């Protein structure tokens, strides 16, 4: 990336104070992650583009806060969480459903991968709607984005023990949910 390349050309002193990751590099690398996160945090499809924009504007403004040793995903997720929270509040005010929770998971177990993926996505979305914000965030980061506990702790500004505790509960509920809805099989 141009930004990253240019940063390497700077002297050490400049690097010590300058953000070590460029906005453009973050945007390119993590746009999909931010989008997915916003959706999984309850932003409706109709609003996710706006929410993504809002998120990246904040990212741009706060880029100098991102430490060189910090997880970019964790940092971005923290911002996305706050944006998503605002959107969910607004969606509730407008009586919109924050998740497509009214779409119950289909039991159509078609043979094609695309159908299975779509069904998995529906089951996941329905499950996420049942979680509170804290557990949802932990579950998304741990089970879907596969961040480490320290990264999740950093993203959510919560100690690791609390992360583990929330994750354990969220996983238990996920197992029960999948069993109750038949998973991917009819």
């Amino acid at each position, binding site marked *: *990336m*141009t*930004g990253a390349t*240019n*940063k390497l*050309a700077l002297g050490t002193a400049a690097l010590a104070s*300058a*953000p070590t990751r*460029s*906005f*453009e590099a973050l*945007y*390119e690398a993590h*746009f*999909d992650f931010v*989008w997915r996160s916003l959706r999984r945090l309850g932003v409706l499809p*109709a*609003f*996710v*583009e*706006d*929410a*993504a*924009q*809002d*998120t*990246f*504007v*904040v990212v*741009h*403004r*706060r*880029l*100098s806060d991102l430490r060189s040793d910090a997880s970019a995903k964790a940092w971005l997720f*923290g911002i996305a969480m*706050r944006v998503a929270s*605002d*959107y969910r*509040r*607004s*969606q509730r*005010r*407008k009586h919109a459903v924050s998740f497509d929770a009214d779409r119950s998971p289909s039991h159509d177990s078609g043979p094609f*991968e695309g159908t*299975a*993926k779509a069904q*998995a*996505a529906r*089951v*996941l*979305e329905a499950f996420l709607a049942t979680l509170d914000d804290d557990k949802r965030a932990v579950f998304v980061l741990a*089970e*879907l984005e596969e961040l480490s506990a320290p990264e999740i702790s950093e993203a959510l500004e919560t100690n690791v023990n609390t992360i583990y505790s929330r994750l354990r509960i969220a*996983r238990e509920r*996920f*197992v029960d949910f*999948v069993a109750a809805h038949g*998973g*991917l*099989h009819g």
Partner: protein
Amino acid sequence: MDELPRAAKELLALARESHGPEDGAARERVRRGVALAVMASAAGTAATVGGTAAKAAGFAKTSGLTGAKAWFWGTALASTAALGIATPKLLELRAPRPVATATTRARPPHAAPAHVPQANVATPLGPEAAPAEGALDRGSLDEGALDGAAPLAPNHRAPEQTTPRAQSAQPATTRHKAKRGSASKLGRPAITAPAQGLGAEMALLRGASAALEQARYADAATSLNEHAERFTHGQLNEEREGLRALLRCMRGDPLAAKAAERFVRSAPDAVLSARIKRACKLGETP
């Protein structure tokens, strides 16, 4: 922690890539919207055209137009009529906002932004600024345009309206109804450019940029020279020199490559650097 049962693991494996953007163009639209918002925020009181940045960003999304300073120096040159398209449209907006995407879609009210531009300043439009809706080409934000604006944080603080919400990472969208400029019909500037200040600088360089896009090299040179003369210590001198380097390359000036290299070396993070390298066929910066 115990392993998940197989069914749960299978479902997660299938769902892991779900909920991503389905529309391949969404990435670009969001990029442009961000650039617009960043510009509006950076320009602050001086340079936001007479309209809401929120609606501008929203308009940018629906029509593909943008107007951010960062976009402006990276994208405008790649988007032939973008500058000319964006400017008049932005002028018809009511009040400046730092960011939002007031599209035709229903949109939730949002937290107050961290900073809200106050002034409405438009720029004069030449007849070449006639809008051509939807004609925006893909911008060059992927070439570091926003990187060029990144220094906004450390050394270019837009005026901030600190509210309790602004302390956290609240989205910069806003429902703040800034004062209205004298909105005009499409194509007619509502407010003339100020004689001095960032708004005036942007007007000149915007004109130069538009002229470059239309291969009106003499006009571009005139605008750049005027900027150099009027704004010896201007805020957009780097942008001016970047445009000048670009102009020389586009004109086929035999010394263009040298001037371009000098610019890129002196301003490696400039929004225009990537564009200049390509236009002037420079090698990669080591």
